[in-house]
């Protein structure tokens, strides 16, 4: 039974991918796929990129949430409440004002740079706090996000970019087409690298002293992992926008079910992350067809409910 769980989950995600390929405003002419090359257009230009983007972004954001939770030894941290996503949004706005026609790579680099700075700022603030409660860290993160968000909104209003900004950041996968999603493969690659250093991360998660005693280069491992988190979130924010709560709820749910052996749980985190993102996006396409609701908007509601359940259900945990 236990041995079958993973293949079954994998099949479920593949099923969702097929559903994602088949769902949408334009019909795919399934019958003519064998005879007519033009029949592939809908699939190749829109559906396939979109589906791949959903899978890659969903799993990368979930895994980066897991990394942050291990490194800060705190269950309630996620990329969006650790300065990266709000800072990356500011970066996207700045490049959007300074160089509107910038190629995606430049936007990506700028967003990643801002996201690194945001994460660094968050960690600096954390070092100055005496941590009486684990719940203080996400609180500080949310406040930092609110302050950064206010700066972003202020700049956007000043340059009359508010509407474009909301559109850029809405976690909307309907804008993903061929030619735009390819950078997400890089994100997938980064996530795969996390799997390779998973055991080192576990040791870093035991604390600085233990890690050094065990002969691990604490600083460089920490730095490497944080760079991955910052890059992943910078890129995902540029390509699809924000995916609220995903990095928080997925690792928490998996940890409730599967425990905390990181190397074993990473594949599960990937599957559940992709699955939830796919499900939200498909639901968004179906609810109001032929109009679409961004996956980010559905995730905001779904994620907040799950977070509240985790938070209020086990009062002496985390």
């Amino acid at each position, binding site marked *: 039974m236990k041995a079958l769980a993973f293949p079954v989950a994998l099949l479920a995600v593949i099923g969702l991918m097929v559903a994602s390929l088949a769902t949408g405003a334009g019909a795919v002419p399934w019958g003519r796929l064998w005879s007519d090359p033009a029949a592939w257009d809908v699939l190749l230009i829109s559906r396939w990129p979109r589906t791949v983007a959903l899978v890659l972004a969903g799993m990368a954001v979930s895994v980066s949430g897991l990394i942050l939770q291990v490194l800060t030894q705190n269950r*309630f941290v996620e990329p969006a409440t650790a300065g990266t996503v709000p800072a990356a949004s500011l970066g996207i706005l700045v490049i959007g004002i300074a160089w509107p026609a910038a190629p995606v790579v430049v936007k990506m680099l700028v967003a990643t740079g801002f996201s690194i700075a945001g994460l660094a700022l968050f960690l600096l*603030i954390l070092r*100055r*706090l*005496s941590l*009486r*409660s684990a*719940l*203080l860290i*996400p*609180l*500080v993160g*949310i*406040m*930092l996000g*609110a*302050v950064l*968000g*206010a*700066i972003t*909104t*202020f700049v956007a*209003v*000043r340059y009359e970019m508010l509407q474009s900004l909301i559109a850029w950041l809405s976690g909307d996968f309907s804008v993903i087409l061929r030619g735009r999603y390819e950078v997400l493969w890089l994100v997938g690659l980064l996530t795969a690298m996390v799997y390779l250093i998973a055991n080192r991360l576990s040791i870093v998660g035991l604390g600085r002293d233990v890690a050094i005693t065990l002969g691990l280069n604490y600083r460089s491992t920490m730095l490497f992992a944080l760079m991955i988190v910052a890059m992943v979130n910078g890129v995902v924010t540029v390509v699809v926008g924000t995916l*609220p709560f995903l990095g928080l709820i997925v690792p928490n749910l998996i940890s409730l079910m599967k425990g905390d052996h990181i190397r074993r749980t990473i594949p599960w985190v990937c599957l559940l992350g992709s699955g939830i993102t796919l499900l939200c996006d498909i639901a968004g396409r179906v*609810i*109001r067809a032929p109009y679409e*609701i*961004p996956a980010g*908007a*559905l995730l*905001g*509601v779904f994620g*907040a*409910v799950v*977070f*509240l359940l985790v*938070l*209020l259900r086990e*009062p002496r945990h985390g």
Partner: protein
Amino acid sequence: MADPRHRLILLAAVAVLVCALFLAVNLTGKLSYILSYRAQVIATMILVGTATGVSTVLFQTITGNRILTPSVMGAEALFVLIQTSILFFIGSARWDSVPVVGRFAIETSVMVVFALTLYRWLLVGKSEDLYRLLLAGLVFGILFRSAAELLQRMMAPNEFNILQGRLFAQLTLPESRLLGIAGGLVALCVALLWRYRRDFDVIALGRDVAIGLGVDYPRIVTRALVLITVLISTSTALIGPLTFLGFMTATLAYQLAGSQRHALLLPFSALLGVIFLAGGQLVLEHLFAMTGTLSVVIEFTGGALFLLMLLRKGRL
């Protein structure tokens, strides 16, 4: 200046001065039009500042801490969600056949029911863990905001426009029909709360002490929560959500009043609210030539103040 009452008078003078400046600076064009427009804006600010200042201080007294505020706990987002849901499920055509007063009364009643249920459940018996409470409140706020956003995305575009106009009747576009009702409501709530000011001094000592000293704790707290909710709904209906205004006014009021008595704290906090709003708008409009961004600036300053307080103390 040792006597807090002198400081209060000085603060009142500053508030009057700021309001007068707001009315008088850069008067050009058709005088009667500009003056009546600015008077409406000032009236809105006074109502919102008072409502926010008073409700925040009392909420903090009842919950026994100086960090939680109704807005941080998602109250304003809840009101926005209620307004959105009503419009979504009933439709603007049918909803608009109800007069403004009736609409506002229904929205506020729904809000009172939901807010009382939520805060009683959250606040009663769980207050030993402030961080969990605060985090839960913040996430509830995010939940209400995303749910409202989701409903807004599913609305027909013209309904959405109507809703936008209602939700973000910003400071600079006061809703004149609502001003009269809002003014009456705020005055009534504040007057009712003012009667209990001495009881609140005792409640601030904690639940058990207050009951021991003979205060009818459950009754006063329930009434106060209802009135606070009405104040928040009124202020949100007037200018939309302002998450950190209450936190700023209450925090500064404790510093400036130098006293624990609500007879002083409440007016201090209310006056500070008016000064922040009117002064902020004055500076933005005439120094930076920007209108309609006051809420963003308040969000920024309030959030930064919150973080600074946290960093300086190292804890809540």
